[in-house]
């Protein structure tokens, strides 16, 4: 497992020392779990967990025409994004299919940081480069930057404890540069992908090991290193879509239930024409498996014997203690509380249509 051709993050050796079980993900050797997916998942819901997400891509978009370019390439409104704020957006192709979902950080007017999915990094870079006009350039900063996610109700207390200079962001989807944690300079954003409060910390690659160790070894705050398995169960519990599962180039943001990030009142964005004019084919729904079994991606969803769609993500959710799934089904074909059947490897298992998200933090 050591001698493969996959890329590593700067924390690879540290993950091995911590007993991380390594797998390939998006071309990287990444830890899938340390102590176990259930304990890691619960640590984020109840105390705090730290994820290495350094495999994700970071691009800097800069120039006088940066905002105009972003507004044309992204579905969400970028002209109102103020310095220090973060916005979630989709990036679509001409037919309205999703190329990626990403976060845009406004550093100053004319300088924007994009955080993209690891698996889409090269594709995104090419797409954005090809579509830039005027005074605007894109730089891929990914190899020089590391990203940690510190998530959970105790994450504030942990970060406060370790703060040596600067100020932590206080509002959801905002960030501060020049924050110093345990003496390490970084950019801290109040963001995350777990459905729990928390921060994402962007620092230089050669300093991330020290940062990671100091986060994991804080006195009297229980912090677990978490792997990709818990990241996936947490995001599913919070009903966040994941590229390659809920999102792909053949589905529009509307069909993926992400209409909130599509501003059709903008004069133009790539894919707008198709999104406005083509009929919506699918709805993203939540399912709670009420029969015996666990729905998995690719299982067929049936209503009165008719195939109505497919499971896009499904597993056992550790905090809710049950089998849940998201599915892409024919538009508006079911309502909340309807009962459908899932074909789990030939067994027909009942599930109830439930509201998304499955879990919402009140902490």
């Amino acid at each position: 497992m050591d001698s493969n051709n996959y890329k590593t993050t700067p924390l690879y050796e540290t993950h091995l020392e911590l007993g991380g079980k390594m797998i390939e993900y998006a071309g990287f050797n990444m830890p899938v779990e340390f102590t176990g997916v259930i304990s890691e998942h619960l640590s984020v819901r109840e105390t705090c967990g730290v994820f290495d997400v350094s495999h994700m891509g970071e691009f800097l978009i800069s120039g006088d025409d940066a905002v105009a370019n972003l507004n044309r390439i992204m579905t969400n409104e970028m002209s109102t994004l103020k310095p220090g704020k973060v916005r979630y957006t989709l990036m679509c192709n001409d037919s309205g299919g999703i190329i990626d979902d990403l976060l845009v950080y406004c550093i100053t007017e004319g300088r924007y940081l994009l955080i993209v999915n690891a698996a889409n990094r090269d594709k995104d870079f090419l797409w954005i480069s090809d579509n830039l006009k005027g005074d605007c350039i894109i730089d891929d900063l990914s190899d020089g930057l590391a990203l940690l996610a510190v998530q959970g109700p105790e994450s504030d207390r942990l970060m406060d404890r370790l703060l040596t200079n600067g100020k932590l962001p206080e509002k959801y989807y905002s960030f501060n540069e020049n924050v110093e944690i345990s003496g390490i300079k970084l950019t801290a954003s109040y963001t995350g992908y777990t459905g729990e409060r928390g921060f994402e910390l962007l620092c230089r690659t050669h300093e991330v090991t020290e940062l990671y160790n100091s986060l994991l070894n804080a006195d009297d705050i229980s912090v677990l290193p978490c792997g990709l398995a818990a990241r996936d169960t947490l995001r599913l519990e919070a009903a966040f879509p994941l590229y390659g599962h809920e999102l792909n180039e053949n589905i529009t943001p509307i069909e993926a239930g992400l209409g909130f990030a599509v501003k059709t009142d903008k004069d133009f964005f790539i894919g707008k024409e198709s999104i406005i004019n083509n009929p919506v084919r699918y709805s993203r729904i939540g399912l709670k498996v009420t029969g015996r079994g666990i729905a998995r991606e690719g299982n067929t969803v049936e209503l009165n014997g008719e195939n109505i769609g497919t499971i896009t993500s499904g597993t056992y959710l550790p905090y809710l203690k049950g089998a849940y799934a998201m599915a892409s089904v024919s538009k508006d074909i079911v309502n909340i509380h309807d009962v459908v059947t899932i074909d789990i490897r030939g067994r027909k298992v009942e599930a109830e249509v439930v509201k998304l998200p499955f879990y919402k933090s009140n902490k």
Partner: protein
Amino acid sequence: MNLPDNLRFSKSHEWIIIDENNTAKVGISDFAQHSMGDIVFINLPSVGDSFDAGDEIGDVESVKAVSEIYSPVSGTVSAINEELLTSPELINEDPYGSWFIEIEGATIDDSITLMTSSEYEEFCQKES
């Protein structure tokens, strides 16, 4: 690796113990439960079902994935461990105490290799 000497192991990572009345108990190995991670669901056959060696007798699901379980011997299911249906995490905690099914008239078949614990240990080292 935890490997009791009195058990035999299949290449698909089931353990089996057969008593003098040809009654067998079958479960999955410590190696198997460890590589699957947290087990959250198990699907078992019914008492009275008959199997040939190598037949699928159920499946085990961890948070990550599903794994089929195969019968290391031929025979008829005489009991299932119902406790595992409601507490599948016991398989992680005590894989050799967590028998899945009991098989009557257990008959070894040449098509399924049953390894001693030391042979199995070597087999697992090659797999990991």
